[in-house]
């Protein structure tokens, strides 16, 4: 049965996923709800999920989708789309950041989609393909989003992404 094994997975998974969601811009409550919902869905099809090479990756993807859904719904309510929000872009994305030492400040100035991409790729350590699934777009779009984010963060762009996509 799914008893012991799922409990362990749950303990190992809940905190990292929820924190990553917060890092990607979700509020604490939403991060909690999204993680819980993703784990509910994981338990419902535990037999399939446990067979995956990265069961936690599945949880990241589902939870991030949940967060995006919630944002979209809120955006519709106040007719304001956070994915294209003007508020986020108000900070100059290149000049000021380079001088900042704290990555937290820098990442906070990224537009939401770039933030999501960075968190899924470098915090959750998901392969590009899973990042694309979590963001509901193509691998190519993820790559260009990451490039833009890395440029804004003044990170040297190595060819890690392309090599990764081939593999």
């Amino acid at each position, binding site marked *: 049965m799914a008893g012991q094994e*799922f*409990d362990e997975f*749950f*303990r190992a998974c*809940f*905190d990292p996923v*929820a*924190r*990553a969601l*917060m*890092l990607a811009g979700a509020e*604490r409550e939403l*991060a*909690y709800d999204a*993680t*819980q919902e993703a*784990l*509910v869905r994981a*338990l*419902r099809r535990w037999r399939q999920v446990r067979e995956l090479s990265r069961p936690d990756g599945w949880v990241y993807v589902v939870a991030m989708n949940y967060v995006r859904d919630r944002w979209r719904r809120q955006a519709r309510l106040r007719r304001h789309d956070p994915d294209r929000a003007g508020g986020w872009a108000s900070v100059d994305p290149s000049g000021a950041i380079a001088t900042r030492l*704290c*990555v*937290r400040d820098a*990442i906070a100035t990224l537009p939401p989609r770039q933030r999501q991409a*960075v*968190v899924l790729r*470098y*915090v959750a*350590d998901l392969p590009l393909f899973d990042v694309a699934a979590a963001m509901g777009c193509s691998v190519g779009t993820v790559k260009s989003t990451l490039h833009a984010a*890395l440029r804004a*963060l*003044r*990170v*040297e762009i*190595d060819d*890690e992404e392309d090599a990764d996509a081939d593999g």
Partner: protein
Amino acid sequence: MRTDELRRELGVVWAEIAPFTGDVRTVRRRVARRRAVTASVVVLLLVTTVVGVITALGGGHRRVEVATTHKQLGPSQEMRHVSGWVVPTDSSANTFASVQQTLETSSVVEQYEVFPPGTAAQMLAITYLAMGRPAPPSAKTVATCSALHTRLVAVQLRSSPDAATRLRDSLANDAKLYTNPNDWDMEVVMKVGASLAQTRAIQAALAADHDLTSYRFVDHQAAYDTFKKDFADQPALVESTKPSDLPESFRLQLAPAASHATVEHRYQVLPGVDTVSGPPGGTLGGAFFSFSLAQQACGTNDRGSKP
């Protein structure tokens, strides 16, 4: 900074976020609840399907029994033209009996055909759609019907302009009547100035035409009434239009095997006919059509007075 440094920095920021403690029991409870809901939906669907099939199969002889009444069609008969669909407001036997009573006694109902409730009704409706019979039930009718698990009744009304309204009145709260907006298949539109003799000649030709199930004449006044309704928000336009500005027309119901093209050619060439239009695209389109004709009629005067 390089990507591995970014990873490390992000890790530091990540670690600064206060840790979460999830409750695995809540998750298990929610999964159990959802499983219960899914299971009950599945059971409900199964029961509905079984009941529907039993009604469809077992109800067979009962249907023939009832079919001895003079208006209801038996399973082997086919309705020639479906003018609308009657959906009882609930699935009780009493309501249906009262609906059937109304259909039997109503002077505007020519024939009707009853389809069994639930899934079976839905399936039959889909069959209707697939076979392209004259007037399949609309999606809305099917949805209402399958939600209520009631029977679905196809009705053929007598060709009288207020037939639907009268049936609706006599059904009162027992059932809803969904009429098919396309209760005619083709329209022969006369020229605005067509003579009485020309109109009579067309009428005689229609009456003798075997490709038609029925036809209805729409005179100047009837055309004007529709026009008035469609343009109720433009009183100036209505005021400046006289009934005689609008063309008279015949609305045809084709026999199932008849071809639109043949009928169109047959009437297009007759004197006094302006156009023969295909299946109706909705009343608004028709109204615009009449409107443009009316403008044409007025337009000749305008052009005449121009220097």
